[in-house]
């Protein structure tokens, strides 16, 4: 069993890189479609918020100025709350990843590479290695770009069912297979004797409850916990299977791509958003909820508002009832931190692809003064891809840094500060923003700086017991 599981992931991963969530057969097109769809769904999800943003204020002309002032003040007041609400899950995810990296050696062992990064980094010369890693990163990024464009196309042609099924399969794979491997490795590390029957029961329960929570209804905290776990699993996979220089390059390029895709007028994510706006599809959240693939960290109940308005304007009758249901679902959720977390099932293959969308999902919810909405019900959305890449950065820092904990801590603080800044910008601009660039830039700068500059300094200081 141990041998088998050791080889299986490699095989699976190799296969998976093509068809990420699909273990048995993969259809890259399906994946891209799903991802696209997810992204488009996410886009649509974002759109309702931005539309809702505008709508209440348009409707209530008399108090529009007061609304704006209230908006600003409330945004700032609750901005801090949102920041804290985002800090906790991001921190938790990072903590889980770092704890696993430090204790379970499986994730720092080189067991091969993903098929998306075919060039090895164990070359004779530095130049060769650099070239290989650049090629690897280029391949990854082009895969993501292709997937995103396919998704835009798919969204335009409304192939929703395929995406739905694909997402279900991906989450199945993630929840069952990867957590099984993770559990196996944890048991190996702590030398815990375990029989198959118990393991089967545990994994079955974990997986089924996860599927229900994420794709259907469930207690909010449980949903959040599952999304954190899934993000952590994905990040661990990345840390394991991406070679050194490739990983750093990919992180850098992905944040650039994120920036471009979300902000440029011809960027795929931007186009998705615009398409969703044209179709006035504010019902997407319903689709997203039910298909359970795209969940964004949603801190507020802005969705019910959006959906209520959307259902009035909706041109899709069949989606209207789904909307209503979703409204109820959303309202049944805890208003404080109701969460839609983006599913990262597809991430294995192209988390990068979905992340730009999740990036774009960072969006401050406006305060709806017209409703008797609880001021607590306001929030920010953050895509799961963001979680994953933050955790990849911190995990890699803890795994491969000579400065060890100093570097990890420095990257952690840098990422959180980047997140703060991003949320601040979000509060100012009130539209979908990429959450990766600032944090990843800070994180990378601090990683390399701390590892090379601060580490020797602190070492010497500790050696002589000088204190600064």
């Amino acid at each position, binding site marked *: 069993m141990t041998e088998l599981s050791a080889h299986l992931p490699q095989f699976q991963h190799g296969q998976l890189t093509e068809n990420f969530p699909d273990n048995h057969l993969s259809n890259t097109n399906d994946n891209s479609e799903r991802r696209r769809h997810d992204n488009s769904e996410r886009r649509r999800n974002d759109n309702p918020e931005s539309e809702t943003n505008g709508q209440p204020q348009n409707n209530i002309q008399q108090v529009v100025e007061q609304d704006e002032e209230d908006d*600003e*003040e409330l945004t*700032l*007041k609750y901005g801090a709350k949102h920041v804290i609400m985002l800090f906790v899950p991001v921190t938790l995810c990072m903590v889980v990843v770092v704890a696993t990296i430090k204790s379970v050696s499986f994730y720092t062992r080189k067991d091969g590479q993903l098929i998306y990064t075919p060039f090895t980094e164990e070359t004779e010369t530095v130049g060769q290695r650099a070239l290989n890693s650049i090629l690897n990163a280029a391949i990854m990024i082009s895969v993501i770009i292709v997937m995103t464009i396919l998704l835009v196309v798919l969204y335009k042609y409304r192939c929703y069912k395929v995406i739905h099924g694909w997402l279900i399969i991906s989450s199945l794979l993630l929840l069952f297979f990867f957590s099984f491997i993770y559990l196996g490795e944890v048991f190996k590390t702590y030398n815990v004797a375990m029989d198959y029957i118990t393991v089967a029961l545990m994994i079955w329960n974990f997986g089924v409850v996860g599927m229900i929570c994420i794709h259907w209804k469930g207690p909010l905290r449980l949903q959040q916990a599952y999304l954190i776990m899934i993000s952590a699993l994905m990040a661990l996979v990345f840390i394991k299977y991406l070679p050194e220089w490739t990983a750093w390059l990919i992180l850098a390029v992905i944040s650039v791509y994120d920036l471009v895709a979300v902000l440029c007028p011809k960027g795929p994510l931007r186009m998705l958003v615009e398409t969703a706006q044209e179709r006035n599809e504010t019902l997407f959240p319903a689709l997203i909820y039910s298909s359970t693939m795209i969940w964004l960290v949603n801190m507020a109940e802005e969705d019910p508002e959006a959906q209520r308005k959307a259902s009035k304007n909706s041109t899709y009758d069949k989606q209207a009832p789904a909307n209503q249901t979703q409204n109820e679902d959303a309202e049944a959720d805890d208003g404080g931190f109701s969460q839609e977390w983006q599913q990262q099932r597809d991430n294995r293959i192209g988390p990068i692809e979905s992340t730009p969308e999740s990036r774009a999902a960072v969006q401050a919810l406006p305060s709806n003064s017209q409703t008797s909405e609880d001021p607590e019900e306001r929030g920010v959305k953050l895509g799961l891809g963001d979680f994953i890449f933050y955790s990849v950065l911190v995990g890699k820092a803890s795994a491969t840094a000579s*400065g*060890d*904990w*100093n570097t990890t*801590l*420095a990257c952690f*603080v*840098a990422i959180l*500060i980047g997140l703060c800044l991003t949320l601040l910008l979000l509060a100012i601009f009130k539209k979908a923003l990429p959450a990766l660039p600032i944090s990843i830039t800070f994180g990378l700068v*601090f990683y390399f*700086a*701390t590892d*090379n*500059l*601060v580490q*020797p*300094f*602190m070492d*010497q*200081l*500790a050696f*002589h*017991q*000088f*204190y*600064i």
Partner: protein
Amino acid sequence: AFFWLVSLLLSSLIWFIAVKASDPRDEPLQKGLLIFGVTFSVLLQEAFRFLYYKLLRKAIKGLVALSEDGCSPISIQQVAYVAGVGFGLMSGAFSMINLLADALGPGTVGIHGDSQLYFLTSAFMTMVLIFLHTFWAILFFHGCEHRRWWEITAVVVMHLVVSGSTFCNTLYMGSLVPSYLLMATAATWAYLLSGGSAQNLRRFLLCK
């Protein structure tokens, strides 16, 4: 915390350049460079504390402008306290965490003739530094608020003295005792500045 980190980064950059530019085998020179690095780092830290103060001042002004009743939801003293805690925690974490990680593993303290109290003294020193950073931030911000430059210089001088006293490690008497005394001084000073008094303290302790 972020600001302390940035100051640490810059100071280590300076030190690194100095080290690379000098002869690595010359022991006293290296130690001298280290001392230079430490002093520079202290000065940089205080500079960043000042920059942080400026930033927070602007933020509070913004909050006041936006608030309903003209007063900010958070006072400058609270901000000073939080800033100090942030600085202290970051400095403490960076000083201690590798030590702690190593302490989990196997090994003997001071087997090569070094002090056997290494871990203990490191822990105490770190603790005193964290406290000191908190108090210094309160003093510093208060000095900046009321334009009392002597307060600010006192903080900088205290920091330099504490760091300097660690230069005579491993003679722990020379570093730990003065540091704790300075901490007590700073603590009472900050307490008085924040509006506390002996009366308040007595009432608090007797739970009135």
